[in-house]
């Protein structure tokens, strides 16, 4: 139990997926101009990440390892993710139109989001068991949501700031992200000290 809590904390803050592992930077910069879209993207990522990590984990442990073809990992994972995203989209459209409306437009963007494939691969290379995989994936996803939401609030304010002309847009966003990254690295120290 203790090590699950430690795993959750480390996934959420110390190894934050955006600010220390550099996965999912494209949506982080691209979809963070408004709070509502950041929230939508964040929830869509958690949703797809959980489903795809579970499916790829099971496939890897019980199919790829069984037939001794683990070198097929990359090909199998990316195809499974692409197919899953498509399926989730169709499924949501039929079953829950309101949820589809909220998450729908972010789903196609997610196939090329490296965070999804990245977490699926990390779960394998860190040798997590099924429970650890679920905890790790959930908290990595929550960490993504947390950071992209904070960042979108900062960017909304940034629109009114007198930024030098050359820094407008992506450059200032990256520098703000750097300050966030410094804060998160120090948070890591705090949590290690408490634990």
């Amino acid at each position, binding site marked *: 139990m203790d090590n699950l809590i430690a795993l959750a904390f480390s996934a959420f803050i110390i190894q934050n997926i955006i600010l220390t592992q550099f996965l999912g930077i494209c949506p982080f910069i691209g979809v963070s101009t408004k709070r509502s879209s950041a929230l939508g993207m964040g929830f869509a990522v958690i949703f797809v990440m959980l489903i795809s990590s579970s499916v790829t984990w099971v496939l890897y442990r019980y199919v790829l390892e069984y037939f001794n073809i683990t070198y097929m990992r*990359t090909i199998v994972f990316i*195809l499974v993710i692409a197919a899953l995203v498509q399926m989730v989209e169709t499924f949501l459209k039929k079953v829950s139109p309101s949820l589809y409306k909220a998450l729908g437009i972010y789903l196609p963007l997610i196939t090329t989001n490296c965070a999804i494939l990245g977490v699926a691969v990390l779960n394998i290379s860190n040798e997590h068991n099924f429970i650890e995989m679920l905890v790790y994936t959930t908290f990595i996803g929550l960490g993504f949501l947390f950071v992209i939401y904070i960042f979108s609030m900062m960017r909304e304010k940034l629109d009114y700031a007198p930024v030098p002309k050359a820094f407008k847009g992506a*450059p200032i966003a990256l520098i703000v992200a750097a300050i966030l*990254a410094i804060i998160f690295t120090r948070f890591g120290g705090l949590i290690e000290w408490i634990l």
Partner: protein
Amino acid sequence: MNKKDNFLKGIFRENPLFVALLGMCPSLAVTTTLENAIGMTIAVIFVLVLSNFIVSLIMSQPKLAKLVRPVRIPVYIVVIATLVTLVEMLMHAYLIGLYKSLGIFIPLIVVNCIILGRAEAFASENKPVDSLIDGFGMAVGFGLAIIIVSVFREFLGTGLLTIWKDLQVDLNFIFDFLRIQPLAMFTQPAGAFITLGFILAVIAAITAKRQAKQAKEVKANG
């Protein structure tokens, strides 16, 4: 457009990282040392050149193209993923140090938007040889961009430049001369964001200046 322009556009006018802001994740993550950036560049050149060539070969056969068009994105992904798996195996066999330090970012070349983007935007509509040159230009452009980022980060962070394995340039005398320490922050995640942010700002400033100059010339002529 001749072949030279086709090659050069990937390096300057349509540079994937500095102009189009594609492929941010690997360019922030693997630029802690120059050696990693060079390794990543080699891997991306291999994958992008071959994927562009193969996709273009498939799509330039009218019969095959008609068959493939409705499911072209999954087909591109399979081609790219196969090439990435090849790179992964070759690196594991011959460059184990690099394989370990690039880690998860080797399989993640699959979702590098530059590669899928070029397959869809260029290779599917152009001849194989042109696509090959385009892929090479884009990959070199991306490589030069991450090499620039990594030179700043490694030099400011450690005062060293690691070119390949033991081949290292020690530039600490510059820090000694200025009587300061290397800024370790630049090897940490925050340094990656700051470096890329400043480089993009400098490029934006240069572009703005050039556009102003061009506008002036147009005014003077007309």
